[in-house]
Protein backbone atom coordinates (compact mmCIF):
# COMPACT_ATOMS: atom_id res chain seq x y z
CA UNK A 1 0.00 0.00 0.00
CA UNK A 2 2.27 2.76 -1.21
CA UNK A 3 -0.01 5.20 -3.05
CA UNK A 4 -0.85 8.54 -1.48
CA UNK A 5 -2.79 7.09 1.44
CA UNK A 6 -2.25 4.81 4.42
CA UNK A 7 -4.45 2.33 6.27
CA UNK A 8 -6.07 5.04 8.37
CA UNK A 9 -7.04 6.99 5.28
CA UNK A 10 -8.41 3.99 3.45
CA UNK A 11 -10.36 2.76 6.46
CA UNK A 12 -11.77 6.21 7.19
CA UNK A 13 -12.95 6.54 3.62
CA UNK A 14 -14.48 3.06 3.59
CA UNK A 15 -16.36 3.82 6.81
CA UNK A 16 -17.45 7.20 5.49
CA UNK A 17 -19.03 5.53 2.47
CA UNK A 18 -21.10 3.35 4.80
CA UNK A 19 -22.80 6.33 6.42
CA UNK A 20 -25.96 7.53 4.68
CA UNK A 21 -27.30 11.02 4.61
CA UNK A 22 -29.47 11.85 7.61
CA UNK A 23 -28.25 8.99 9.78
CA UNK A 24 -27.16 9.35 13.40
CA UNK A 25 -23.80 7.75 14.19
CA UNK A 26 -22.45 7.17 17.67
CA UNK A 27 -18.84 6.41 18.63
CA UNK A 28 -17.05 5.81 21.91
CA UNK A 29 -13.54 5.83 23.29
CA UNK A 30 -10.64 6.55 20.94
CA UNK A 31 -12.83 7.98 18.20
CA UNK A 32 -10.15 9.14 15.71
CA UNK A 33 -11.18 6.84 12.87
CA UNK A 34 -15.02 7.05 13.03
CA UNK A 35 -14.81 10.77 13.76
CA UNK A 36 -12.72 11.34 10.64
CA UNK A 37 -15.07 9.09 8.68
CA UNK A 38 -18.17 11.00 9.77
CA UNK A 39 -16.60 14.31 8.89
CA UNK A 40 -15.58 13.04 5.46
CA UNK A 41 -19.08 11.69 4.85
CA UNK A 42 -20.62 14.98 5.89
CA UNK A 43 -18.30 16.90 3.59
CA UNK A 44 -19.14 14.70 0.64
CA UNK A 45 -22.26 12.56 0.25
CA UNK A 46 -24.01 12.94 3.62
CA UNK A 47 -24.32 16.66 4.44
CA UNK A 48 -27.09 15.92 6.95
CA UNK A 49 -25.23 13.23 8.86
CA UNK A 50 -25.31 13.50 12.65
CA UNK A 51 -22.55 12.04 14.80
CA UNK A 52 -22.12 11.87 18.55
CA UNK A 53 -18.76 11.49 20.21
CA UNK A 54 -19.10 9.29 23.26
CA UNK A 55 -18.17 10.66 26.66
CA UNK A 56 -18.18 14.32 25.70
CA UNK A 57 -21.62 13.97 24.16
CA UNK A 58 -20.66 16.45 21.47
CA UNK A 59 -22.91 16.35 18.43
CA UNK A 60 -21.24 17.02 15.07
CA UNK A 61 -17.98 18.34 16.54
CA UNK A 62 -15.96 20.13 13.90
CA UNK A 63 -12.69 21.09 15.59
CA UNK A 64 -9.83 22.82 13.79
CA UNK A 65 -7.46 20.14 15.08
CA UNK A 66 -9.09 16.85 15.91
CA UNK A 67 -8.17 15.60 19.38
CA UNK A 68 -7.61 11.90 20.06
CA UNK A 69 -9.72 11.55 23.19
CA UNK A 70 -13.52 11.30 23.11
CA UNK A 71 -13.75 13.66 26.09
CA UNK A 72 -11.37 16.35 24.94
CA UNK A 73 -12.81 19.84 25.31
CA UNK A 74 -11.39 20.69 21.89
CA UNK A 75 -14.42 18.79 20.54
CA UNK A 76 -16.62 21.60 21.86
CA UNK A 77 -17.09 23.52 18.59
CA UNK A 78 -20.08 21.30 17.87
CA UNK A 79 -23.73 21.63 16.88
CA UNK A 80 -24.52 21.05 20.54
CA UNK A 81 -23.69 18.56 23.27
CA UNK A 82 -25.78 16.02 25.13
CA UNK A 83 -25.07 14.98 28.70
CA UNK A 84 -23.65 11.46 28.60
CA UNK A 85 -26.51 10.31 30.80
CA UNK A 86 -28.95 11.31 28.04
CA UNK A 87 -26.97 9.41 25.43
CA UNK A 88 -27.33 6.34 27.61
CA UNK A 89 -31.09 6.90 27.51
CA UNK A 90 -31.17 7.30 23.73
CA UNK A 91 -29.10 4.14 23.32
CA UNK A 92 -31.56 2.17 25.41
CA UNK A 93 -34.57 3.60 23.58
CA UNK A 94 -33.50 1.67 20.53
CA UNK A 95 -35.20 3.74 17.83
CA UNK A 96 -33.03 6.81 17.40
CA UNK A 97 -29.44 5.91 16.66
CA UNK A 98 -28.55 4.43 13.31
CA UNK A 99 -24.92 3.36 13.49
CA UNK A 100 -22.72 2.34 16.40
CA UNK A 101 -19.00 2.24 15.65
CA UNK A 102 -17.37 -0.41 17.80
CA UNK A 103 -14.29 -2.53 18.13
CA UNK A 104 -12.80 -5.18 20.35
CA UNK A 105 -9.78 -7.06 21.62
CA UNK A 106 -11.56 -9.99 20.05
CA UNK A 107 -14.19 -10.12 17.31
CA UNK A 108 -15.83 -13.36 16.23
CA UNK A 109 -17.62 -14.76 13.20
CA UNK A 110 -21.02 -13.51 14.42
CA UNK A 111 -19.70 -10.02 15.07
CA UNK A 112 -19.62 -10.42 18.83
CA UNK A 113 -17.08 -8.01 20.32
CA UNK A 114 -15.02 -8.40 23.45
CA UNK A 115 -13.33 -5.49 25.16
CA UNK A 116 -13.04 -7.22 28.51
CA UNK A 117 -10.58 -10.09 28.54
CA UNK A 118 -8.65 -12.74 26.65
CA UNK A 119 -8.86 -16.08 28.44
CA UNK A 120 -10.97 -16.87 31.45
CA UNK A 121 -12.60 -13.75 32.95
CA UNK A 122 -11.54 -14.61 36.48
CA UNK A 123 -7.85 -14.86 35.52
CA UNK A 124 -7.35 -13.47 32.04
CA UNK A 125 -4.16 -13.64 30.03
CA UNK A 126 -4.99 -10.16 28.78
CA UNK A 127 -7.28 -7.81 30.63
CA UNK A 128 -8.87 -5.19 28.39
CA UNK A 129 -10.16 -1.84 29.56
CA UNK A 130 -13.83 -2.79 29.81
CA UNK A 131 -16.92 -2.62 27.69
CA UNK A 132 -18.29 0.92 28.23
CA UNK A 133 -21.40 1.16 25.98
CA UNK A 134 -21.01 -1.97 23.85
CA UNK A 135 -23.96 -3.83 25.39
CA UNK A 136 -26.10 -1.32 23.52
CA UNK A 137 -24.86 -2.57 20.12
CA UNK A 138 -28.10 -4.50 19.50
CA UNK A 139 -30.12 -1.34 20.26
CA UNK A 140 -28.74 0.66 17.37
CA UNK A 141 -30.03 0.14 13.83
CA UNK A 142 -26.73 -1.40 12.77
CA UNK A 143 -23.14 -1.49 13.88
CA UNK A 144 -19.87 -0.96 12.10
CA UNK A 145 -16.92 -2.79 13.60
CA UNK A 146 -13.38 -1.57 13.06
CA UNK A 147 -9.95 -2.58 14.22
CA UNK A 148 -6.38 -1.75 13.24
CA UNK A 149 -5.34 -5.30 14.16
CA UNK A 150 -6.38 -7.86 11.57
CA UNK A 151 -4.80 -10.86 13.30
CA UNK A 152 -5.85 -14.33 14.43
CA UNK A 153 -5.70 -13.05 18.00
CA UNK A 154 -8.35 -10.45 17.21
CA UNK A 155 -10.53 -12.42 14.78
CA UNK A 156 -11.36 -15.49 16.81
CA UNK A 157 -13.80 -18.36 16.44
CA UNK A 158 -15.66 -17.41 19.58
CA UNK A 159 -14.92 -14.40 21.78
CA UNK A 160 -13.88 -15.34 25.30
CA UNK A 161 -16.40 -12.87 26.69
CA UNK A 162 -19.34 -11.25 24.93
CA UNK A 163 -19.25 -7.59 25.87
CA UNK A 164 -20.76 -6.27 22.62
CA UNK A 165 -23.40 -8.63 21.25
CA UNK A 166 -23.32 -9.52 17.54
CA UNK A 167 -25.69 -11.67 15.53
CA UNK A 168 -27.40 -14.63 17.18
CA UNK A 169 -25.76 -17.94 16.29
CA UNK A 170 -29.03 -19.86 16.58
CA UNK A 171 -31.09 -19.96 13.43
CA UNK A 172 -34.11 -17.69 13.48
CA UNK A 173 -33.28 -16.16 16.86
CA UNK A 174 -34.07 -12.46 17.02
CA UNK A 175 -32.25 -9.84 19.03
CA UNK A 176 -34.44 -7.92 21.50
CA UNK A 177 -34.42 -4.63 19.62
CA UNK A 178 -34.95 -6.34 16.21
CA UNK A 179 -32.23 -4.29 14.58
CA UNK A 180 -29.80 -5.28 11.84
CA UNK A 181 -26.84 -5.96 14.12
CA UNK A 182 -23.28 -5.83 12.81
CA UNK A 183 -23.31 -4.85 9.16
CA UNK A 184 -19.73 -4.01 8.24
CA UNK A 185 -16.24 -4.78 9.51
CA UNK A 186 -13.34 -2.59 8.46
CA UNK A 187 -9.69 -3.53 8.95
CA UNK A 188 -6.41 -2.47 7.34
CA UNK A 189 -6.72 -5.48 5.00
CA UNK A 190 -10.32 -5.83 3.99
CA UNK A 191 -13.97 -5.14 4.55
CA UNK A 192 -16.32 -7.86 5.71
CA UNK A 193 -20.07 -8.12 5.97
CA UNK A 194 -22.47 -10.80 7.21
CA UNK A 195 -24.34 -13.53 5.38
CA UNK A 196 -28.04 -12.77 5.85
CA UNK A 197 -28.80 -16.51 6.19
CA UNK A 198 -26.05 -17.82 8.44
CA UNK A 199 -25.31 -14.40 9.96
CA UNK A 200 -21.62 -15.29 9.82
CA UNK A 201 -18.93 -12.88 8.70
CA UNK A 202 -17.84 -13.04 5.08
CA UNK A 203 -15.28 -11.22 3.03
CA UNK A 204 -16.76 -8.27 1.14
CA UNK A 205 -13.71 -6.64 -0.42
CA UNK A 206 -9.94 -6.74 -0.14
CA UNK A 207 -7.97 -3.54 0.00
CA UNK A 208 -5.62 -2.74 -2.90
CA UNK A 209 -2.57 -5.00 -2.72
CA UNK A 210 -4.17 -7.57 -0.43
CA UNK A 211 -5.44 -10.99 -1.54
CA UNK A 212 -8.27 -13.08 -0.14
CA UNK A 213 -5.71 -15.66 0.91
CA UNK A 214 -3.81 -13.01 2.89
CA UNK A 215 -7.01 -12.22 4.77
CA UNK A 216 -7.87 -15.87 5.44
CA UNK A 217 -4.42 -16.42 6.92
CA UNK A 218 -4.91 -13.79 9.60
CA UNK A 219 -8.53 -14.59 10.40
CA UNK A 220 -9.05 -17.17 13.13
CA UNK A 221 -12.27 -18.63 11.78
CA UNK A 222 -13.69 -19.82 8.48
CA UNK A 223 -14.46 -16.50 6.87
CA UNK A 224 -17.26 -16.65 4.32
CA UNK A 225 -15.85 -16.35 0.83
CA UNK A 226 -17.90 -15.16 -2.13
CA UNK A 227 -17.16 -16.53 -5.61
CA UNK A 228 -15.44 -13.30 -6.58
CA UNK A 229 -13.95 -10.87 -4.09
CA UNK A 230 -13.88 -7.30 -5.36
CA UNK A 231 -11.15 -4.87 -4.52
CA UNK A 232 -12.03 -2.04 -2.17
CA UNK A 233 -12.25 1.08 -4.32
CA UNK A 234 -9.29 3.24 -3.30
CA UNK A 235 -9.91 6.72 -1.90
CA UNK A 236 -10.81 9.29 -4.50
CA UNK A 237 -9.04 12.62 -4.65
CA UNK A 238 -12.13 14.27 -3.19
CA UNK A 239 -12.17 11.80 -0.30
CA UNK A 240 -8.49 12.32 0.41
CA UNK A 241 -8.92 16.09 0.28
CA UNK A 242 -11.83 15.94 2.70
CA UNK A 243 -9.87 13.64 4.98
CA UNK A 244 -6.84 15.91 5.02
CA UNK A 245 -8.97 18.64 6.55
CA UNK A 246 -10.19 16.51 9.45
CA UNK A 247 -7.52 13.97 10.23
CA UNK A 248 -5.97 14.15 13.69
CA UNK A 249 -2.25 14.92 13.47
CA UNK A 250 -0.37 11.67 13.35
CA UNK A 251 -3.37 9.55 14.27
CA UNK A 252 -3.00 5.92 13.37
CA UNK A 253 -6.45 5.20 14.77
CA UNK A 254 -7.34 2.48 17.20
Amino acid sequence: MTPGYDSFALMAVVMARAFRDGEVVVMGAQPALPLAACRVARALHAPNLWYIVGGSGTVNPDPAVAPDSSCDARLAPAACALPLTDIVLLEGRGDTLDVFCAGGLQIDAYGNCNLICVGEWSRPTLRGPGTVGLPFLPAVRRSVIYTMAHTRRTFVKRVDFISGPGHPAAHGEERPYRQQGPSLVVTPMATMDFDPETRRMRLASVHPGVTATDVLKVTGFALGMPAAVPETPPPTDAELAALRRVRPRGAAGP
Partner: protein
Amino acid sequence: MPARFLSPREAIAEFVSPGLTLGIGGMHMTAAPMSLVRELVRGGVRAGRLITSPSASMQADLLIGAGLVDEIISPYVGFEHLGLAPCFRRAAETGGRPRILECDEGSLSHALYAGAGGIPFMPCPPGIDLTDIPRVNPEMFRRTGDPFTGEERWAVCALRPDVALIACRETDPLGTVAFGRFPFTDRHLALAAKSLVVQVERMVTTAEMSARSPGETLPGFLVSAVVVAPGGCYPTASPGLYHADEDEIRAYLKAAKDPEGFAGYAAGLDATEDAYLERVAERPGVKDAR
Protein backbone atom coordinates in the same frame (compact mmCIF):
# COMPACT_ATOMS: atom_id res chain seq x y z
CA MET B 1 -24.33 25.66 56.87
CA PRO B 2 -21.73 27.64 54.91
CA ALA B 3 -19.59 25.46 52.71
CA ARG B 4 -16.35 24.28 54.21
CA PHE B 5 -13.27 25.13 52.24
CA LEU B 6 -10.56 22.65 53.05
CA SER B 7 -7.13 21.62 51.82
CA PRO B 8 -6.91 18.28 50.01
CA ARG B 9 -5.39 16.72 53.11
CA GLU B 10 -8.09 18.05 55.42
CA ALA B 11 -10.89 17.00 53.07
CA ILE B 12 -9.60 13.45 52.74
CA ALA B 13 -8.89 13.15 56.45
CA GLU B 14 -12.37 14.29 57.37
CA PHE B 15 -14.50 12.56 54.74
CA VAL B 16 -12.68 9.45 53.57
CA SER B 17 -12.26 6.78 56.21
CA PRO B 18 -10.51 3.63 55.01
CA GLY B 19 -12.84 1.00 53.60
CA LEU B 20 -15.61 3.28 52.36
CA THR B 21 -17.31 3.07 48.99
CA LEU B 22 -15.71 5.85 47.02
CA GLY B 23 -17.06 7.40 43.86
CA ILE B 24 -14.46 9.20 41.79
CA GLY B 25 -15.40 11.37 38.85
CA GLY B 26 -13.76 12.41 35.62
CA MET B 27 -14.11 10.69 32.26
CA HIS B 28 -11.21 9.36 30.23
CA MET B 29 -8.42 11.90 30.61
CA THR B 30 -10.69 14.81 31.49
CA ALA B 31 -11.79 16.30 34.82
CA ALA B 32 -10.34 13.69 37.14
CA PRO B 33 -10.05 15.08 40.68
CA MET B 34 -6.34 14.29 40.77
CA SER B 35 -5.48 16.53 43.73
CA LEU B 36 -7.82 14.47 45.88
CA VAL B 37 -6.66 11.20 44.35
CA ARG B 38 -3.00 12.01 44.98
CA GLU B 39 -3.88 12.81 48.56
CA LEU B 40 -5.46 9.36 48.92
CA VAL B 41 -2.19 7.89 47.64
CA ARG B 42 -0.07 10.00 49.99
CA GLY B 43 -2.25 9.05 52.94
CA GLY B 44 -2.54 5.39 51.92
CA VAL B 45 -6.32 5.63 52.26
CA ARG B 46 -7.94 2.41 51.11
CA ALA B 47 -11.27 2.33 49.21
CA GLY B 48 -13.40 -0.64 50.13
CA ARG B 49 -15.07 -0.13 46.79
CA LEU B 50 -14.26 2.28 44.01
CA ILE B 51 -17.00 3.43 41.64
CA THR B 52 -15.78 5.43 38.65
CA SER B 53 -17.39 7.22 35.73
CA PRO B 54 -18.08 5.05 32.65
CA SER B 55 -14.42 5.52 31.68
CA ALA B 56 -11.68 6.03 34.21
CA SER B 57 -8.01 6.51 33.56
CA MET B 58 -5.30 7.65 35.95
CA GLN B 59 -7.61 8.35 38.90
CA ALA B 60 -8.33 4.61 39.05
CA ASP B 61 -5.02 3.19 37.90
CA LEU B 62 -2.99 5.21 40.41
CA LEU B 63 -5.10 4.00 43.34
CA ILE B 64 -5.00 0.42 42.08
CA GLY B 65 -1.23 0.60 41.66
CA ALA B 66 -0.90 1.83 45.22
CA GLY B 67 -2.92 -1.18 46.40
CA LEU B 68 -5.70 1.01 47.70
CA VAL B 69 -8.73 -0.49 45.93
CA ASP B 70 -10.42 -3.62 47.28
CA GLU B 71 -13.23 -3.73 44.71
CA ILE B 72 -13.86 -1.73 41.59
CA ILE B 73 -17.00 -0.95 39.61
CA SER B 74 -15.89 0.61 36.36
CA PRO B 75 -17.00 0.06 32.77
CA TYR B 76 -13.54 1.05 31.48
CA VAL B 77 -10.11 1.65 32.94
CA GLY B 78 -7.69 2.70 30.25
CA PHE B 79 -6.05 5.53 28.40
CA GLU B 80 -7.68 5.51 24.95
CA HIS B 81 -5.04 6.09 22.25
CA LEU B 82 -2.27 6.09 24.86
CA GLY B 83 -2.78 2.47 25.85
CA LEU B 84 -4.13 0.10 28.48
CA ALA B 85 -4.11 0.82 32.21
CA PRO B 86 -0.95 -0.83 33.51
CA CYS B 87 -1.86 -1.36 37.14
CA PHE B 88 -5.46 -2.39 36.45
CA ARG B 89 -4.23 -4.90 33.88
CA ARG B 90 -1.54 -6.30 36.11
CA ALA B 91 -3.95 -6.72 38.97
CA ALA B 92 -6.48 -8.60 36.83
CA GLU B 93 -3.90 -10.77 35.10
CA THR B 94 -2.11 -11.74 38.31
CA GLY B 95 -5.23 -12.21 40.41
CA GLY B 96 -4.40 -9.29 42.67
CA ARG B 97 -6.65 -6.62 44.09
CA PRO B 98 -9.08 -5.13 43.20
CA ARG B 99 -11.88 -7.58 42.77
CA ILE B 100 -13.66 -6.47 39.59
CA LEU B 101 -17.43 -6.02 39.57
CA GLU B 102 -17.88 -6.07 35.81
CA CYS B 103 -20.27 -3.39 34.62
CA ASP B 104 -21.20 -1.38 31.55
CA GLU B 105 -21.85 2.30 30.99
CA GLY B 106 -25.64 2.06 30.81
CA SER B 107 -26.03 -0.02 33.94
CA LEU B 108 -23.68 2.26 35.85
CA SER B 109 -25.51 5.41 34.78
CA HIS B 110 -28.89 3.93 35.68
CA ALA B 111 -27.59 2.50 38.97
CA LEU B 112 -26.41 5.95 40.00
CA TYR B 113 -29.74 7.48 38.98
CA ALA B 114 -31.42 4.88 41.19
CA GLY B 115 -29.04 5.61 44.06
CA ALA B 116 -29.65 9.33 43.71
CA GLY B 117 -33.42 8.91 43.74
CA GLY B 118 -34.03 6.36 46.47
CA ILE B 119 -35.10 3.92 43.75
CA PRO B 120 -34.45 0.46 45.17
CA PHE B 121 -33.10 -1.16 41.99
CA MET B 122 -33.17 -0.56 38.26
CA PRO B 123 -34.49 -2.88 35.55
CA CYS B 124 -32.02 -2.94 32.65
CA PRO B 125 -32.89 -2.12 29.06
CA PRO B 126 -32.38 -5.11 26.79
CA GLY B 127 -28.83 -5.54 25.53
CA ILE B 128 -27.07 -6.54 28.72
CA ASP B 129 -29.05 -9.80 28.43
CA LEU B 130 -26.92 -10.81 25.48
CA THR B 131 -23.58 -10.19 27.16
CA ASP B 132 -21.62 -12.24 29.68
CA ILE B 133 -21.56 -9.35 32.15
CA PRO B 134 -24.43 -10.36 34.47
CA ARG B 135 -23.06 -13.92 34.62
CA VAL B 136 -19.76 -12.75 36.15
CA ASN B 137 -21.35 -10.14 38.41
CA PRO B 138 -24.24 -11.72 40.30
CA GLU B 139 -23.70 -9.22 43.09
CA MET B 140 -24.89 -6.32 40.94
CA PHE B 141 -27.17 -8.06 38.44
CA ARG B 142 -30.24 -10.14 39.33
CA ARG B 143 -33.25 -11.39 37.41
CA THR B 144 -36.54 -9.70 38.07
CA GLY B 145 -40.05 -10.01 36.71
CA ASP B 146 -41.63 -7.14 34.83
CA PRO B 147 -44.96 -6.78 36.66
CA PHE B 148 -46.57 -5.24 33.57
CA THR B 149 -45.60 -7.84 30.97
CA GLY B 150 -44.58 -10.83 33.08
CA GLU B 151 -41.24 -11.00 31.25
CA GLU B 152 -38.03 -11.86 33.09
CA ARG B 153 -35.46 -9.07 32.88
CA TRP B 154 -32.07 -8.22 34.30
CA ALA B 155 -31.96 -5.61 37.02
CA VAL B 156 -28.97 -3.73 38.37
CA CYS B 157 -28.70 -2.68 42.00
CA ALA B 158 -28.79 0.98 43.03
CA LEU B 159 -25.36 2.46 43.77
CA ARG B 160 -24.70 5.01 46.51
CA PRO B 161 -21.09 5.94 47.20
CA ASP B 162 -20.35 6.90 50.78
CA VAL B 163 -18.27 9.75 49.41
CA ALA B 164 -17.90 11.09 45.91
CA LEU B 165 -14.80 12.99 44.86
CA ILE B 166 -15.34 15.06 41.73
CA ALA B 167 -13.66 17.92 39.92
CA CYS B 168 -15.71 20.97 38.95
CA ARG B 169 -14.58 24.17 37.36
CA GLU B 170 -15.79 26.70 39.89
CA THR B 171 -17.17 27.32 43.32
CA ASP B 172 -18.80 30.37 44.82
CA PRO B 173 -18.44 31.43 48.45
CA LEU B 174 -21.55 29.39 49.37
CA GLY B 175 -19.94 26.22 48.04
CA THR B 176 -22.26 25.96 45.06
CA VAL B 177 -20.15 24.41 42.31
CA ALA B 178 -20.35 24.42 38.52
CA PHE B 179 -19.15 21.83 36.05
CA GLY B 180 -16.93 22.69 33.14
CA ARG B 181 -18.09 21.94 29.64
CA PHE B 182 -19.16 18.28 30.09
CA PRO B 183 -21.02 16.82 33.04
CA PHE B 184 -20.35 13.17 32.03
CA THR B 185 -21.98 11.04 34.74
CA ASP B 186 -20.36 13.10 37.50
CA ARG B 187 -23.63 14.88 38.17
CA HIS B 188 -25.43 11.58 38.81
CA LEU B 189 -22.48 10.41 40.91
CA ALA B 190 -22.66 13.56 43.03
CA LEU B 191 -26.43 13.25 43.46
CA ALA B 192 -26.09 9.62 44.50
CA ALA B 193 -23.30 10.15 47.04
CA LYS B 194 -23.90 10.38 50.77
CA SER B 195 -21.22 13.03 51.01
CA LEU B 196 -19.51 15.01 48.33
CA VAL B 197 -16.05 16.55 48.14
CA VAL B 198 -15.51 18.81 45.16
CA GLN B 199 -12.17 19.95 43.81
CA VAL B 200 -12.39 23.20 41.82
CA GLU B 201 -10.10 25.37 39.77
CA ARG B 202 -11.28 28.75 40.99
CA MET B 203 -13.71 30.86 42.97
CA VAL B 204 -16.39 32.98 41.29
CA THR B 205 -19.01 35.28 42.74
CA THR B 206 -22.49 34.08 43.64
CA ALA B 207 -23.83 36.36 40.89
CA GLU B 208 -21.67 34.60 38.30
CA MET B 209 -22.85 31.25 39.60
CA SER B 210 -26.45 32.41 39.41
CA ALA B 211 -26.11 32.92 35.66
CA ARG B 212 -25.15 29.28 35.04
CA SER B 213 -27.92 27.10 33.72
CA PRO B 214 -29.66 24.38 35.74
CA GLY B 215 -27.81 21.15 35.20
CA GLU B 216 -24.46 22.90 35.32
CA THR B 217 -24.48 23.55 39.04
CA LEU B 218 -24.75 21.63 42.29
CA PRO B 219 -26.06 23.75 45.18
CA GLY B 220 -23.84 24.21 48.20
CA PHE B 221 -26.10 22.18 50.46
CA LEU B 222 -25.07 19.05 48.55
CA VAL B 223 -21.38 19.82 48.92
CA SER B 224 -19.65 18.60 52.06
CA ALA B 225 -16.34 20.30 51.32
CA VAL B 226 -14.75 22.33 48.56
CA VAL B 227 -11.06 22.09 47.76
CA VAL B 228 -9.79 24.98 45.67
CA ALA B 229 -6.87 23.54 43.73
CA PRO B 230 -6.02 25.39 40.51
CA GLY B 231 -4.36 22.91 38.20
CA GLY B 232 -5.61 20.06 40.37
CA CYS B 233 -6.88 17.92 37.49
CA TYR B 234 -3.34 17.73 36.11
CA PRO B 235 -2.20 15.66 34.26
CA THR B 236 -5.79 15.15 33.10
CA ALA B 237 -7.66 18.05 31.52
CA SER B 238 -9.84 20.68 33.10
CA PRO B 239 -12.16 21.25 30.17
CA GLY B 240 -11.95 24.77 28.85
CA LEU B 241 -9.00 25.65 31.09
CA TYR B 242 -6.19 23.24 30.26
CA HIS B 243 -5.72 20.07 28.24
CA ALA B 244 -4.46 16.72 29.38
CA ASP B 245 -0.67 16.56 29.43
CA GLU B 246 -0.15 13.48 27.30
CA ASP B 247 3.61 13.54 27.82
CA GLU B 248 3.18 13.28 31.56
CA ILE B 249 0.56 10.53 31.15
CA ARG B 250 2.89 8.64 28.83
CA ALA B 251 5.62 8.96 31.45
CA TYR B 252 3.24 7.48 34.00
CA LEU B 253 2.28 4.61 31.71
CA LYS B 254 5.93 3.83 31.10
CA ALA B 255 6.83 3.96 34.77
CA ALA B 256 3.83 1.92 35.89
CA LYS B 257 4.66 -1.00 33.59
CA ASP B 258 6.15 -2.77 36.59
CA PRO B 259 5.56 -2.42 40.34
CA GLU B 260 9.00 -0.92 40.97
CA GLY B 261 8.47 1.74 38.34
CA PHE B 262 5.08 2.50 39.80
CA ALA B 263 6.56 2.84 43.28
CA GLY B 264 9.07 5.33 41.92
CA TYR B 265 6.32 7.35 40.28
CA ALA B 266 4.20 7.37 43.43
CA ALA B 267 7.20 8.43 45.51
CA GLY B 268 7.62 11.39 43.17
CA LEU B 269 4.21 12.85 43.99
CA ASP B 270 5.76 15.20 46.58
CA ALA B 271 4.95 15.28 50.25
CA THR B 272 2.05 17.67 49.86
CA GLU B 273 -0.36 18.56 47.10
CA ASP B 274 0.71 22.18 47.35
CA ALA B 275 4.26 21.21 46.55
CA TYR B 276 3.09 19.04 43.65
CA LEU B 277 0.92 21.78 42.14
CA GLU B 278 3.73 24.26 42.60
CA ARG B 279 5.97 21.97 40.62
CA VAL B 280 3.55 21.38 37.73
CA ALA B 281 2.37 24.98 37.65
CA GLU B 282 4.77 25.77 34.84
CA ARG B 283 3.38 23.08 32.52
CA PRO B 284 1.62 24.39 29.44
CA GLY B 285 -2.03 25.13 30.08
CA VAL B 286 -1.90 24.75 33.82
CA LYS B 287 0.14 27.92 33.96
CA ASP B 288 -2.70 29.91 32.41
CA ALA B 289 -5.29 28.35 34.68
CA ARG B 290 -3.51 29.39 37.85
